[in-house]
């Protein structure tokens, strides 16, 4: 069974703390994504990666960075967490090529910043 695993389902952090959200996929997918989900706003793309050590900004990259040192792992980093980063974070992966595009999602990491 294909799987995208996010390391933490629930996190509570304080303002200014550095936060790491980890995501691992076991499908040998080239592409990996980090989305943020907020009520009424749907899913918004933060960053994505086509390959190891490659990254591209999505629609809302401010305040975030990412790391992809291995093909199966994609990390989202909040250098200095702020209360407006309280949200649900969803990691996803997909394979490349035409006639594709299906994303496989993890179960999400709900982050609360106090």
């Amino acid at each position: 069974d294909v799987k995208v695993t996010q390391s933490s389902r629930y996190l509570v952090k304080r303002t200014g703390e550095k936060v790491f959200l980890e995501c691992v996929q076991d499908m040998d997918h080239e592409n990996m994504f980090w989305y943020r989900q907020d009520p009424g706003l749907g899913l918004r793309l933060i960053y994505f990666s086509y390959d190891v050590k490659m990254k591209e900004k999505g629609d809302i990259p401010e305040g975030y960075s990412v790391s992809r040192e291995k093909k199966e792992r994609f990390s989202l980093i909040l250098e200095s967490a702020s209360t407006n980063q309280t949200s649900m974070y969803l990691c996803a992966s997909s394979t490349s090529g035409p006639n594709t595009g299906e994303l496989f999602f993890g179960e999400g990491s709900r982050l609360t910043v106090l």
Partner: protein
Amino acid sequence: AQSVTQLDSQVPVFEEAPVELRCNYSSSVSVYLFWYVQYPNQGLQLLLKYLSGSTLVKGINGFEAEFNKSQTSFHLRKPSVHISDTAEYFCAVRAFYNTDKLIFGTGTRLQVFP
């Protein structure tokens, strides 16, 4: 660029009634279209997708959607809903040439009452 509009943020319906969740998209190029479902406290999973071919697409759990290019719509339908269909539903679009980003709508919460 592509965009997706889900016209209804919430759709209440009684069990065994039919339901339609509306999705309209905007794009200057050909697109691939997707519907995802998110059950409470879970990630998103694919319901169905349109890549090419027949404009009527059947998915899991008895759902289907019809691609209408002239009306730029991809509405999701089910002839008879169950309590277990209560969830949030997201429509998404991807340009056919672009292997990276899926653009998501803001979601429709389907609430099925007994």
